[in-house]
């Protein structure tokens, strides 16, 4: 499959790889996908409790090059954004930025889900109203 240079760059130089302390109240963890489907993404955010700004993000992904690139890009994009701003990132933004081929749109959907799941986890821990994340739809 011919990938865009951006996918190849993220694959070769993945940004923000790693893990954060799941137990910390400042950290939200999203684990999406399934091994049987060929991709699992774990995206974590560390949110400043005062400002609600995402100060750090980490990921690990089992999946194809597009899945790795999508999650790597997602960590870059959420960093520095407020939780509310991060929720406006959609999979189509990721598809556009990485020029993903149609069969790989799935990977971008997974990355969007991972962002929402991580924010959802953080909100749950901190008793923040869930409304903004209600859009996480099964698909």
């Amino acid at each position, binding site marked *: 499959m011919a990938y865009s240079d951006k996918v190849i760059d993220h*694959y070769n130089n993945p940004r923000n790889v790693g893990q954060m302390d799941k137990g910390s109240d400042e950290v939200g963890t999203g684990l*999406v996908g*399934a091994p*049987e489907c060929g*991709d699992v*993404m774990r995206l974590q955010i560390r949110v400043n409790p005062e400002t609600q700004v995402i100060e750090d993000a980490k990921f690990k992904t*089992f999946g194809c*090059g597009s899945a790795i690139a999508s999650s790597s890009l997602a960590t870059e994009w959420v960093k520095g954004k407020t939780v509310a701003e991060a929720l406006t990132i959609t999979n189509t933004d990721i598809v556009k930025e990485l020029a993903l081929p149609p069969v790989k749109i*799935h990977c971008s959907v997974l990355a969007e889900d991972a962002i929402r799941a991580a924010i959802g986890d953080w909100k749950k821990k901190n008793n923040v109203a869930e409304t903004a994340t209600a859009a996480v739809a*099964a698909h």
Partner: protein
Amino acid sequence: MIITESATPLPAGVHLPIYMDNHATTPLDPRVLEAMMPYFGPKFGNAASRNHSFGWEAEQAVDKAREQIAKLIGATAKEIIFTSGATESNNLALKGIAEMYRERGNHIITQVTEHKAILDTCKKLEKQGFRVTYLPVQADGLIDIEDLKRAMDDKTILVSIMYANNEIGVIQPIAEIGKLCHEKGVIFHTDAVQAVGKVPVNVIADNIDVLSLSGHKIYGPKGVGALYVRRRNPRVQISEQINGGGHERGMRSGTLNVPGIVGLGAACEICSNEMEAEAKREAELRDYLRAKFEKALDYIHVNGNMEHHLPGNLNMSFVHVEGESLLMGINDVAVSSGSACTSATLEPSYVLKALGLGDDVAHSSIRFGLGRFNTKAEVDYVSDKVIDVVSKLRELSPLYEMVKEGIDLSKIEWAAH
């Protein structure tokens, strides 16, 4: 494909990209090309032209090729029918036998790990009223002869079991299957595309009635194959699927592809002479490749029975790493992912799943296909690169991290998507 040239000089004998996908196709042997060349030029005659020297010359070349092919599989020249390749051979065998013997019965037996050229043809025959039994395979890829015995009934006219599998390299107990078929008066066909020229195939000793083979899998040209059809004990009849002129004993009409046939013959002759030494060399390289992986990496395993195995095949699962992302990291090496995850359905290999592998492991599998022209230096380059990329991807893999931390992945409730 983007080929990343390494900054450090390559080891002697390594030229990129490296081809290690010899189950898909093989490069043309230069000796084969040399044999074919005159038939693209001055020796252009039609082998069916009986009234001049151009035709006789072509016919002679075709007859020689028939001898060369027959010799490789223990047949006689008259039993070789030329086709456009193994897909056509398989179609001709299955449809031709089904049609010819329909009055005797409508039951066909095959196995779940066959190539699509068999499975899709069987599906078509099912639509025409044939009953097809798809035998399962055991965890090592071999069928259970008892399953075959149980599946046979008085309506069974044909058993089609491939000689060696194209993904996992497993060689079925062909002689035993053939013996059983002969005892029951059932015709035995085998798709021997991956086996012919690689391991000793003998239609008499193996009790084979009909056999498909292909040129481009044995360092011959593409677009040419053959079907062996037994003439005695039993005499097998095949209803023709292409009409027009009655070429090839009426079984397959169409002007013969003389240069292709000459190439197929030459390729078979080389195999007859060199197969034994080549198989030994390939098996050594294969075992060396496997040993290197096993020394450097954990959570890997080999798919398919290694006792009954093609010498050049190694199908390995690098668990917790996804196959396509692994291929992306070794893009100057041509191997094949066991997973068909580039397709819209994202389905992993049905052959690996038939062995009982979970989808997650099937997604993590790579097929290495070693061939005549692969060198030890190439095997070293490929293994080092794969080990490096697998290690990097595992650093990225949440599954590998979880397993290392002692988490049971099967206990996690994964979000379906």
